[in-house]
């Protein structure tokens, strides 16, 4: 059986960079656009890397900044200073 993790963001300017960074680091991820929101799902694992986000934004970025724009998640969370990972074991 397929075991998908997902994350949903408000469809705003911040999310644009998050989606770009996620697509770059998770080429298999599927991006779904729904009214006012963007939902991204992937098999088993999805990662957001601080380094990729900082490249996209051209500034320093704290992983916890995404708390402002995230709507929902599915999967076990592993967060530290460099990444935010969702995964099913």
């Amino acid at each position: 059986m397929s075991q998908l993790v997902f994350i949903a963001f408000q469809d705003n300017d911040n999310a644009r960079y998050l989606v770009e960074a996620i697509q770059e680091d998770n080429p298999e991820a599927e991006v779904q656009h729904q009214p006012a929101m963007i939902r991204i799902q992937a098999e088993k694992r999805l990662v957001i890397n601080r380094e990729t986000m900082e490249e996209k934004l051209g500034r320093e970025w704290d992983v916890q900044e995404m708390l402002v724009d995230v709507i929902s998640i599915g999967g076990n969370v592993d967060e530290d200073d460099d990444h935010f990972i969702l995964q099913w074991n």
Partner: protein
Amino acid sequence: MATKNKKLNLKDRYQYLTRDMAWEPTYQDKKDIFPDEDFEGIKITDWSQWEDPFRLTMDAYWKYQAEKEKKLYAIFDAFAQNNGHQNISDARYVNALKLFLSGVSPLEHAAFQGYAKVGRQFSGAGARVACQMQAIDELRHSQTQQHAMSHYNKHFNGLHDAPYMHDRVWFLSVPKSFFDDARSAGPFEFLTAISFSFEYVLTNLLFVPFMSGAAYNGDMATVTFGFSAQSDEARHMTLGLEVIKFILEQHEDNVPIVQRWIDKWFWRGFRLLSLVGMMMDYMLPKKVMSWSEAWEMYYEQNGGALFKDLERYGIRPPKYQDVANDAKNHVSHQAWSTFYQYSQATNFHTWMPEKEEMDWLSQKYPDTFDKYYRQRFEHWDKEHAEGRRFYNNTLPQLCQVCQIPTIFTEKDDPTMLSHRQLVHEGERFHFCSDGCCDIFKHEPEKYVQAWLPVHQIYQGNCEGEDVETVVSKYYHINIGEDNFEYIGSPDHKRWLAIKGESTGKKADSTDQNAA
């Protein structure tokens, strides 16, 4: 940068600012300080194993919450100043907000009280900090929802006394009793009920597709509070999953206790969500996703992945999940039928779907809508057109546990009402399902005390003997304004006046939305 090196990393900061702020009591027995920690039978051997994956500390919490609030209130101001209520798709939509404000917002407040209470009852510092933050979040949700909807209260009926109604109105006892059940349970059951079963497994269905639908129907204020609240929920959901894993890892004796709570609270949550199913399929004039599709995405798919992950702890998917999955094609229609018949006693209006909406339902529910529901709806529509709008004047029989009228049907047999009964200490009790009956059987001493609105009316405890007196005096529903059919209601007339005025002007932005 030198300053950057001085900053503690996330893990250390969390350690210093949560765990290291706690202390071991020296002159009081721990059992006296935390007297509720043991009675449910949950065994905790090492609280330090508690993990908060977001590692949120109080300083970071205030920083990000303040940012969310500033964004949110800027939008509320803009919405009110620009008469945002005139840009919604149709005023029928506002009825979903009336249900939300009287049915859901008071639950946010109940959640605030619940987390404030259980946060005091755990001897582990990590759990206490997490509960404290969640209590503040829930209070924020209750407040922001009331602030968002106060603008609608200036222009539409039925929003004037939501907390008062929550404690009294018949159908609002469904959400109220759900949270009262959780809050009167022990601290670990409360976390399993609300943090795990409700937040993790089920709230996505309310706050994600419904809020996306609010956006699609032009309600900027609601989608903004909804998503702002949901950004906190992402943390709560993570906590919910961690709570379950923590309890299960602490002791094998915890597994059967937690499994029973998961079974109970999945079923209770599923029943509660019947209201949301109806909001999505019938109360959003512009449709985003059917209830059935939302259930498939957020329960069958996401919930399936979750329970597969929990298998290694000896946890199986909730009992009666098969009944719930089968019901995804029925509950919204059955709930809407019921509210349509009892609109004389609700703080919101109901209506029969327009032809295009019926066609949408036929398309989204190919195996059920035409076969079991459409003909009845068309019949009611015809009756209404001929001056006989149908209202049911017989008070319904309620389920002793979920308190929903016994309106649901059997799995795989949608023409058979689902009804269970049993005799407990000489008294007969009625249930909507095996799920609710099982919950009663396990704790009859709790559920015999249920405050069932229909019984209370018949016992004369609701300020009157007839429905009209109960509705006006006891519920504070303004008769002829808040209740009955939508077509021809004061809200409907006001909406036509808004649209009539605006269509006279050229290039009015509201015209695009009305089209």
